[in-house]
Each structure stands twice: as structure tokens, then as C-alpha cells.
């Protein structure tokens, strides 16, 4: 029966139908729902790993053991997993292995706009790229066939618009596939002697895959009536091209983005007067065409920055685009903000008040960087706060020790903050690391992690104790504070910064959006006491505003956290 599915759900359905029985991933927008969806199938073992490298290595282990496996991540997660990626290319697989990677052109929820297709070429691993949910399902199943036929892991490349768009799919049945494990040192032990013999195998495999690309069903030609131009495209760019051009121009729609066909592209180019390449981000297909000596137009027309759209494609093809009516009125922007009652707010207020340099990290708490808190100095990637703090303080020879901190979330700390902390202990930093422990992976939509005590399927499981972990790596000063208590936070930060050794403060309170968190009644403003001093506005709470010169609390948003009360010297913010 036909169903509407997100691209990510369709990948999960494809995994299920292909007989995949092991999934290990780390959440990251826009890839997260693949793993959340597969967790609903009881036939499939699925887990959140602490990071993408662990996930990929676990998926490789399952493949080695003879089970079809999958790991999913966002584009920057593939950087974390790049180490196993390049060598799993050499070993190949036993049962099929598929690696899902979702790019985020337009950076809806990411820190960069990298193009993951380069990884396929660099690691010599085939990459498939669906353009809607039906293809996401079909390509995922086919990916396992390719993986096992060519003895290679296969990259399944998604993007925000394919991952997070629902379209119509027709689900099928599951097959069960297992393979026996056989010891094979020459194939699976990548020490130099063996790896030297595997590299030529990889090159041969790429040649075979290139031949497969010439005629495989993933790459198709769509006829057009006007041969003055031909278009090569893939993924969501294909949809924009078809939306604008319909059947006017012939289109070569690529579903396997690496390796790219050679003869088929040459033949297509010879058939048309002008060749246009429409692709998001870098000129990846374009570079391939140019390497074949084919003249084409690509990135000179379509920017490598941001997403494409049908209007952008139409403009470049000189088609009229009629915009709607824009108001002349200035419309204030609505950036994302920390939620009312967010436990991070009190902490960032305290950091800002103490004028500290804050090395930040990836999560909801990155929002501590925006006005009015403005409390963060740098954000790079998962774990960079802790390692960055070490470099910052060490290089200042102690001058920055008592005014610099790292802020990292519980899940991000487990992902790659712990190694930075080991470095601080080992190389004797003096900085203070603040772990903002909200008992969940927040930004990606509430995923469990090793510190929460629950697994992906929601079952109780082992819980990593952050205090014990930090002490075990050699940090002697470890303490816990409640970020709703500003005085306690302030005292703890001052004391730990003054100490002549590295320290960890765990700022602990569950995310205010968690269902089990009990909220207090909304606060009210005693307008007789409020003088409109705006002290309560310093924390940037969306529930507080100034109306007619007095503070006003929005009762639909306020959860009674009480942080604003601590800022009001006149006692104007009250519990009912």
C-alpha cells in the first residue's frame, strides 16, 4: 500500500527490506530519523553509538560477522568516521555494508556546508544519491547488492531536502540474509604487507564499478525535444530541473554519483549542442566532465554556496519568474532561541556576567552565543571546546587560566570531549570544563546517549557516570551544580577557575522539553513592584517581555524555572 514517508524513513524501510540486521549511528540533522525509524523494526538491532567512528567500526564488525549492516551520520560526522572509511574501502565487506551520510546545503542545522561526494572519490567507495523517498528505498536495497557484488562498502548520500521531504513510496517485503564468517587475514588485517596487495584490488574494483555505471539502472537518460542543451544532474537538483524544464531538454539523471560513467557522459555530451551541469554545492560532476575533456557549464552559473531551487534554475535558463508581493514593512527576524526554562540559560548568564572567554561546542547550548547572552567565543566541531580550552590556556602561560572555560553537552562530551579532557589531565592544563548535562541529546530532537541510562529502543541500560569518568581520567576537582541556582553556579565557577589544577563542573538539570520534567506554575509580575528596569531581560527568556514599561510573563511559555526571579532585586516576579 502506498505511503507517505520521509526520505530518511524510506532509507530505514529499505534497510529493513534488504535484510539489514545491525544499525549503529550517531544522531545529526538531517540524518537522525533513519536510525529512529529503523529502531521501530524488531527484526533489526539498532543503537546510538557514542560517535560516528565507533558507529562505522561497529557496522564493519557486523558486516565481517556476516550480517548486513548500516551506520548513519550527518556530513560532518563522516569526518569523524573518515579513518575507518578509508581502510574499510581496502578490506571490503563480508555481508553488505551501507554508510548513510546526509549533507546540509544551506546549513539549516550545521556548522559548515561540506560536500560529502568528495569522500566517495577520495576513499574509492561507490556512492548512491537518491532524489526522493521512493528512490531512497529502492537505492538502499540496491546498495546492498552492489556492496556484496563488488565487495565494497557503499555510501548512501542524502541531503536535507531528500531526508526531510515526505513523498510516496510503496513498501515491500523483508528478505533475511546472513553469510558465514571466515577468517581471512590477507583481506581483513590491513598491515602494510596486506594493504599493499589490497590497494590494486580497490583500483580494479573502481574500474569495474565505472563499467557498471555505464549501464546501471541508477543512471538514466530522459529524452527531451530540444537538443540545443542537455542537462546532467542528480539528487534534489534533478527535481528542480524537471520542475522548470519538464521534457524540453534531454536529462541525464545520475543516481550513482561515484564512480561516474565515462562513455555514457561522452555520448550524451556529443548528442547535445551545449552541456549544463546542475548540482548543489561543489562542481563535482562538472570536474569529472572537464577531466574527460568535455566542455560544459556548471558552477559559472550555479553557486557552490547554499541550496538551489526551481526559481534559481529558471532564472539561469532565462525563464520568467514572477515573485509574489513583499511588504515594504521591515519584518524582524525570528532566530532560534533557548526555550523558556532551558537549563543552559542560567549557566550562560553566569559566564557572561563574569566576562569569561568561553570555548563552546555543538548542541542547543550553541545558542548561548546569541543576544542578549553573547556568552560564547568560538564553536568549531564536536569536542573542540575542551581541546581548544587546553590550547588557549597553555599558550597563554597561565594568564588565561582563571578567565577561560569550555562548555560542552553531555552527549557531545561522550562523543569526543573525553579525549580532550584526557589531554588536559595528561598535559596538565589548568582550565575548567563545564559539562552542561541536560540528560538527553537535545538539538537533534531528544536522542538517548551513554549518560542517560536508556538505549535507542527506549529500554533501560548501562549509564555512564560523568563524575566517575572525569575522575578516572585524572581530574580531581569534579563538582555538580544546578543551573537554575545562579548563586551556586557563580560560586562554583569562581572557585574552580581559581584552583591551580584542571577541573570539571557538571551543570545538571534535564532539558525542559523532556516529558517527565515537571514544571512549576508560570510566574506573575507584581506591577506595583516592577519599575521596568529590565534586569530580568538579561537572560533572553522568550517568556518575558516589557509591555507598557513593565515586565510581562507569557503564561503559555513560562515553566516557573525561577532564574528571572533571582535577577529581580525588587521581588516583582512572583509565584502564584
Amino acid at each position, binding site marked *: 500500500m502506498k*505511503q*507517505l514517508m*520521509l526520505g530518511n524513513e524510506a532509507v530505514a524501510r529499505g534497510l529493513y527490506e534488504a535484510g539489514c540486521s545491525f544499525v549503529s549511528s550517531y544522531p545529526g*540533522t*538531517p540524518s*537522525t*530519523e533513519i536510525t529512529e525509524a529503523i529502531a521501530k523494526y524488531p527484526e533489526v538491532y539498532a543503537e546510538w553509538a557514542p560517535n560516528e567512528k565507533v558507529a562505522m567500526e561497529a557496522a564493519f564488525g557486523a558486516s565481517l560477522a556476516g550480517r548486513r549492516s548500516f551506520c548513519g551520520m550527518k556530513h560532518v560526522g563522516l569526518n569523524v568516521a573518515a579513518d575507518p572509511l578509508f581502510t574499510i574501502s581496502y578490506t571490503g565487506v563480508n555481508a553488505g555494508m551501507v554508510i548513510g551520510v546526509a549533507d546540509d546545503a544551506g546549513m*539549516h*542545522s550545521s556548522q559548515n556546508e561540506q560536500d560529502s561526494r568528495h569522500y566517495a572519490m577520495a576513499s574509492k567507495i561507490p556512492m548512491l544519491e537518491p532524489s*526522493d523517498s521512493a528512490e531512497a528505498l529502492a537505492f538502499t536495497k540496491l546498495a546492498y547488492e552492489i556492496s556484496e557484488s563488488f565487495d565494497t562498502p557503499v555510501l548512501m548520500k542524502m541531503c*536535507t*531536502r531528500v531526508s*526531510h*521531504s*515526505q*513523498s*510516496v513510496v510503496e513498501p515491500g517485503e523483508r528478505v533475511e540474509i546472513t553469510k558465514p564468517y571466515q577468517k581471512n587475514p590477507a583481506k581483513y588485517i590491513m598491515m602494510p604487507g596486506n594493504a599493499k596487495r589490497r590497494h590494486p584490488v580497490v583500483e580494479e574494483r573502481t574500474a569495474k564499478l565505472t563499467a557498471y555505471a555505464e549501464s546501471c539502472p541508477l543512471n538514466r537518460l530522459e529524452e527531451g525535444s530540444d537538443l540545443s542543451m542537455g542537462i546532467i544532474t542528480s539528487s*534534489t537538483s534533478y*527535481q*528542480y530541473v*524537471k*520542475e522548470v524544464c519538464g521534457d524540453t531538454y534531454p536529462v541525464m539523471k545520475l543516481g550513482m554519483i561515484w564512480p561516474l560513467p565515462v562513455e555514457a557522459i561522452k555520448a550524451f555530451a556529443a548528442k547535445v549542442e551545449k552541456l549544463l551541469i546542475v548540482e548543489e554545492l561543489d562542481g563535482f560532476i562538472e570536474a569529472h566532465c572537464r577531466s574527460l575533456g568535455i566542455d560544459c557549464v556548471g558552477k559559472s552559473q550555479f553557486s557552490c554556496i547554499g541550496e538551489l*531551487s*526551481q*526559481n534559481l534554475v529558471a532564472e539561469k535558463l532565462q525563464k520568467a*519568474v*514572477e*515573485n*509574489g*508581493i*513583499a*511588504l*515594504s*514593512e*521591515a*519584518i*524582524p*527576524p*525570528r*532566530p*532560534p*532561541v*533557548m*526555550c523558556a526554562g532551558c537549563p543552559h540559560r542560567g549557566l550562560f548568564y553566569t559566564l557572561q556576567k563574569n566576562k569569561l572567554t568561553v570555548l563552546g561546542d555543538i548542541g*542547543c547550548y*550553541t*545558542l548561548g552565543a*546569541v*543576544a*542578549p547572552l553573547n556568552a560564547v567565543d568560538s564553536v568549531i566541531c564536536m569536542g573542540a571546546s575542551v581541546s581548544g580550552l587546553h590550547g588557549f590556556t597553555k599558550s597563554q602561560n597561565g594568564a588565561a587560566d582563571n578567565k577561560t572555560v569550555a562548555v560542552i553537552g553531555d552527549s557531545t562530551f561522550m562523543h569526543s570531549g573525553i579525549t580532550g579532557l584526557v589531554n588536559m589531565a595528561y598535559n596538565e592544563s589548568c582550565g575548567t570544563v563545564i559539562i552542561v548535562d541536560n540528560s538527553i541529546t537535545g*538539538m*537533534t*530532537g531528544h536522542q538517548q546517549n551513554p549518560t542517560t541510562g536508556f538505549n535507542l529502543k527506549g529500554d533501560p541500560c548501562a549509564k555512564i557516570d560523568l563524575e566517575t569518568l572525569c575522575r578516572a581520567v585524572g581530574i580531581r576537582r569534579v563538582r555538580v551544580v544546578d543551573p537554575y541556582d545562579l548563586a551556586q553556579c557563580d560560586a562554583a565557577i569562581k572557585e574552580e577557575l581559581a584552583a591551580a589544577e584542571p577541573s570539571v563542573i557538571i551543570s545538571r538539570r534535564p532539558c525542559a522539553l523532556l516529558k517527565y520534567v515537571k514544571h512549576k506554575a508560570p510566574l506573575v509580575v507584581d506591577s506595583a513592584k516592577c519599575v521596568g528596569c*529590565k534586569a530580568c*531581560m538579561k537572560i*533572553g527568556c*522568550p517568556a*518575558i*517581555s*516589557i509591555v507598557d514599561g513593565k515586565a510581562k510573563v507569557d503564561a503559555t511559555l513560562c515553566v516557573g524555572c525561577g532564574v528571572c526571579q533571582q535577577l529581580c532585586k525588587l521581588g516583582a516576579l512572583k509565584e502564584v
Partner: protein
Amino acid sequence: MKTKNVMIVGVGGQGSLLASKLLGRLLLTKGYDIKVSEVHGMSQRGGSVVTYVRFGDKVYSPVIDKGEADYIVSFELLEAARWTEFLKPGGKLITNTQQINPMPVVTGAAQYPEDLVAKMRQAGLDVDAIDALSLAEQAGSSKAVNLVLMGRLSKYFDFTEDEWLAAIEASVPPKFLEMNKKAFALGEKA
């Protein structure tokens, strides 16, 4: 049939994803090709959010571009004003009159524009403005703004009452069904 475009816009956390899910379910039963595009992640945290719903014989692009929307359904007044350029000439803008201050307004860095409904009409837009929050509260929950607005949208579509109700039943938890049906009816009749 030529592709029809519906944009659902609002503030992260207002429940626009449920509205698009409901609409998608309904359109699927009618046999259309459909694409529903959402944005997850950081922008959900109280930011401006947009969902694109497209249906017809064959839908290619998952998104709606400027000048293409047949309908914009806005959960919040400022968000309606933000997206007007996406409405096609002759398109319909359905908006909740509820105002939620964005952070630049809260901090005093910007002003919430006044008389937006009148200004949008003066600009030549076809605006259907309703107080969906009051109607939702009347139905039993301020969270039912999404069903009030779907009820309003249903006025402009040819689908039967039963078809809408079946989609509502498939999209909301049983214990909230009656309240949601009431909200839908209030939106339709307002």
C-alpha cells in the same frame, strides 16, 4: 492536474508538523502525487519554521519558491508577513492573528510591526485572518491552533467533511480526537 502548493508557516513548537501530516494523509487518500518538505533541527527551537505541501499528478521539487504558493497558512501574524512573497498572484493567505514576539522584539532591538493584516490587504494580498488561538481555547486547548487553521483551509478545498475527519482520526491521539474535531469545525465556520 497542475501542482497545487500549500505553505504552512509559524514559530517552532506551534504544531505545524501535525498540520502538514494531516494534510499529507488526506491528499494520499485522494491518489495525488505528494511532496511534504519540513525543516528539523536548530530552527525548531522557537525560530521561524516553514513546511511545504505540494500535490498534483506529478510533483518534482519538494519545496515551494517565491510566487508559487496557492495558499499560505500562517500560525502567527508576523510569520504571515514574512512569507507573503511566496504567494502566487491570486493566492490566499490564511493567518492566525496571534502575535508571538521574536527575540529581537523581546530585547527591544526591533519593533513588532503594527496593523499587519491591514497592511497586507493594502499591499493587495487576499488575507483571511482569524483568531485561531481563541477558537482553539474554545475547543478545549490552546494547542489545537493547528486544527483550527486546517478547518479554515478546508473551506477552500473540495474535499468532503468525511475525508477530512478520516485524516484527523489518523493523525491525532484518540483521547484528543473530539477536541481536535471541535477545533477543526470552529475554524471552518469562523
